[in-house]
């Protein structure tokens, strides 16, 4: 086998598509020809680099980034979908005012809580007439 024939069959050899006889011939040539052997080694190295690059995954937030960009583009392309820019501050102000008004109205409608003084049971049951005068006791 010469170098030209070896080069022509190198892909098929690498992909395991050669007949057993041709495979033996290519292998024998690669063992004896330094130039073809170097070409094949470089091809194998390139395959390894590709295999390593294939395993790289994109960042975890890429999908979120894409969707944010898509939403922005959608807003630019279809401004009628959202509020026009000039009406946005008006809408926010009206929302805040409506929330405050609702708060005041609900506050007025709510029932006030009556605060009652609670007397412990033992004092509530006590008979005032039966109590001795502190003043009299102090004179004794």
């Amino acid at each position, binding site marked *: 086998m010469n170098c030209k024939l070896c*080069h022509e069959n*190198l*892909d098929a050899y690498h992909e395991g598509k050669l007949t057993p006889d041709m495979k033996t011939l290519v292998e024998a040539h690669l063992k004896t020809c330094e130039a073809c052997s*170097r*070409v094949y080694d*470089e*091809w194998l*190295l*390139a*395959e390894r*680099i*590709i295999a*390593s*690059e*294939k395993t*790289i*995954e*994109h*960042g975890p937030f*890429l*999908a979120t*980034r*894409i*969707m944010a*960009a*898509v*939403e922005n*583009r*959608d807003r630019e*392309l279809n401004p009628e979908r959202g509020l026009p820019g000039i009406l946005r501050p008006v809408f926010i102000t009206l929302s805040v005012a409506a929330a405050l008004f609702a708060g005041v109205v609900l506050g007025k409608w709510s029932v006030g809580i009556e605060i009652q003084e609670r007397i412990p049971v033992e004092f509530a049951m006590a008979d005032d007439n039966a109590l001795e005068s502190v003043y009299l006791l102090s004179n004794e």
Partner: protein
Amino acid sequence: MNDNELIELILQGDREKFGTLVDRYSQMVFRTCMGFVHNREDAEDLTQEVFLRAFQSLAGFKGKSSFPTWIYRIAVNASLNFKRKHSGISLFERLESLFSGEKSAEKNPVFSLTDDPEKILIEREHSLWLQRALDSLPANQRTAIILSKYEDLSQKEISEIMNLSIGAVEALLQRAKKNLRERLSAGDKKKLI
């Protein structure tokens, strides 16, 4: 829910469903872009651009080809445009890297910080060697070989993406591999740093 059903819902106004398509195909698009640019940051920017273009042209998707085939086409066109636009910058960066290796190291964030520095250097050198050989191929050969090697697509799938016959793709791949082997052998790995 299949791709066509999702697209129908998106076109009816359910924009959130586009997120499902992004989840389904972002890694595939990213990998294709990586085959062209060999840099994670650029490949992510390109992936975003591809999905934005797809979103804008979704109404024009007639379903004649599958959604993956359609989005592959957008990814290939966006990547080739990117390489065309940045070919001047890449030359500048190569010149810059002659004086300082820092910039090229930043542009190639594929390796982990915990890796052995010598190993990183060798891998970077090899990656640049392959990148230069791939970049020197004509656009159609480069596209065919990237779709074949990075995406493991069959000749039939590549022919659908590139709008060529299967025979033409087969011939293109053979020429691409032959040229790539020659350019890999001609490229001195050590001179690339």
